[in-house]
């Protein structure tokens, strides 16, 4: 069990809010599309804070401008991976940005065991810290 105030992994823009409804997700999709950003769906069962590359549920949807169609894809991903972390990302291709501009979690495992700190005591009072995800002790696909 995670002991932070939210009790869950708090990556992304909206993890401190109650889970977003489909209507709320659609509103965020519209915001991204209005800004000319492309939307991608990504999932993982390794939510380590430095696990940058979640699996892509297909490429970013550069040519899909209909929020209803994107929501359909999000729900497909949820059906396929009901107990994974799923995030929606927006990507800007504008010069000077060319990077993600949004990222929010839309699905998460029922139980989130969280992370432990592994401390390696080295010279002097130095400590080398490793953040270890309890779930990743099991192989991919069997973690949650």
């Amino acid at each position, binding site marked *: 069990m995670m002991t932070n105030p939210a009790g869950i*992994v*708090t990556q992304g823009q909206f993890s401190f809010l109650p889970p977003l409804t489909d209507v709320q997700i659609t509103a965020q999709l519209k915001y991204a599309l209005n800004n000319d950003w492309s939307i991608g769906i990504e999932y993982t069962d390794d939510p380590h804070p430095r696990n940058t590359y979640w699996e892509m549920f297909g490429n970013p949807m550069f040519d899909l401008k209909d929020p209803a169609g994107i929501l359909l894809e999000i729900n497909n991903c949820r059906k396929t991976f009901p107990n994974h972390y799923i995030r929606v990302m927006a990507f800007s291709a504008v010069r*000077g940005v060319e990077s*993600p501009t949004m990222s929010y979690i839309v699905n998460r495992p029922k139980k989130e065991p969280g992370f432990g700190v592994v401390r390696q005591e080295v010279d002097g009072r130095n400590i080398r810290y490793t953040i270890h995800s309890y779930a990743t002790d099991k192989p991919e696909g069997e973690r949650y």
Partner: protein
Amino acid sequence: MSKVNETIKEGKERYVAGVLPYKKMGYWQPDYVPKDTDLLAMFRLTPQAGLDPEEIAAAVAGESSTATWTVVWTDRLTACELYRAKAYRCELVPNTGEGTKTEAQYFAYIAYDLDLFEGGSIANLTASIIGNVFGMKAVKALRLEDMRIPVAYLKTFQGPATGVIVERERLDKFGRPLLGATTKPKLGLSGRNYGRVVYEALKGGLDFVKDDENINSQPFMHWRDRFLYVMEAVNKASAATGEVKGHYLNVTAGTMEEMYKRAEFAKQLGSIIIMIDLVIGYTAIQSMALWCRANDMILHLHRAGNSTYSRQKNHGMNFRVICKWMRMAGVDHIHAGTVVGKLEGDPMMIRGFYDTLLDTHTKPQLEKGLFFEQDWASLNKCLPVASGGIHAGQMHQLLTYLGDDVVLQFGGGTIGHPQGIQAGAVANRVALEVMVQARNEGRDIWNEGPQILLDAAKWCGPLRAAIDTWKDVSFNYESTDTADYVPVATGSN
């Protein structure tokens, strides 16, 4: 009169020993068309009573480039016309002079050839531009308002070590302002107690905690102790939340050697960010920026000391110029005002600072105090930091004024929360997320903001408590540094 002041052509007559008006020496050239490669500077002059403002503009141009008080024949050994800075425009500042409450001030525009400056050196640039002229007797007061840095010169600077885009990628945080807090009390906490504040704030939901500008290595807490306890707090909070967290470890010290030593220790402990104070000086800042680029470190700059010369409207330099120089010097974060908090700041002026730090290309916007067009030549963006007297109840105003690319720092607004530091952090994070969500949904957060916060407070007790505690706090004092032009004004030429 204009005949009298005309530049004397190069030749024997020009170099007769003695004193000549600066205008006659070639420092006043109203017909000059600045080159794309020129550095441009705009000064606010308050001449001594009865003096010709154009002559004073020429004097500033002269004394910040080649001139001395008298004619010297050795000019004739050089391509002196190139090296002379040229005052090319001088005009009365709106709402000053006769019939107003303020004595006459003038905006003087001066062009400097690129060859007057050493590449990649803020120290050299500033030694010319602000080195000498601010003490001239002929000016009652003088203020450097803005500069246009040519692309050719910008390309000789590294720029921000990390930049906003890469910082967000490293932190894995997109589409919202970052949240921070300064550890309080500033002075007196032991390393162990200090780390407690850091842990609670980060675990509660902040992204960053920060050393204050004067936290270095004092008798109550030596720097190594602080670094060790803080990194324990950062890592523990990161594990507790699953997020990348950071603490700006202030490496400011008496010598470069000592600063490098502290920066190396921060790196060894796995810190993602270090911090310096503006008072260490331009050269030290550039050196630390190079170190940070080489060591994958984000560099936070606290603008300690700036108000001694940036606040008064008639003398010193505008903070937007510091912003430009610091983006060139290579810092990733700089404190640039809150609009609504306890420190000086007119909303439009502060937006001008933010644009200066974040734009890839700035257009002149007089109402924001941006006098020149500025191509930033792909220099990284520098993240503005809003810190000082802000709290969760102002979130709609902060997001409207400052946008997404900013670190909102709630020091007292986190640590002073009646239910504890974690609750303070929760209140700030919930207020932020709910406001970003509402803005993205197209709601009018400027007007609906207070209600949006009250609605969230129904399910978030810590936010309720924050609103109740600080609902009446605001800092409504008049700004000293305001625009000379109203938003409707068009170009002044």
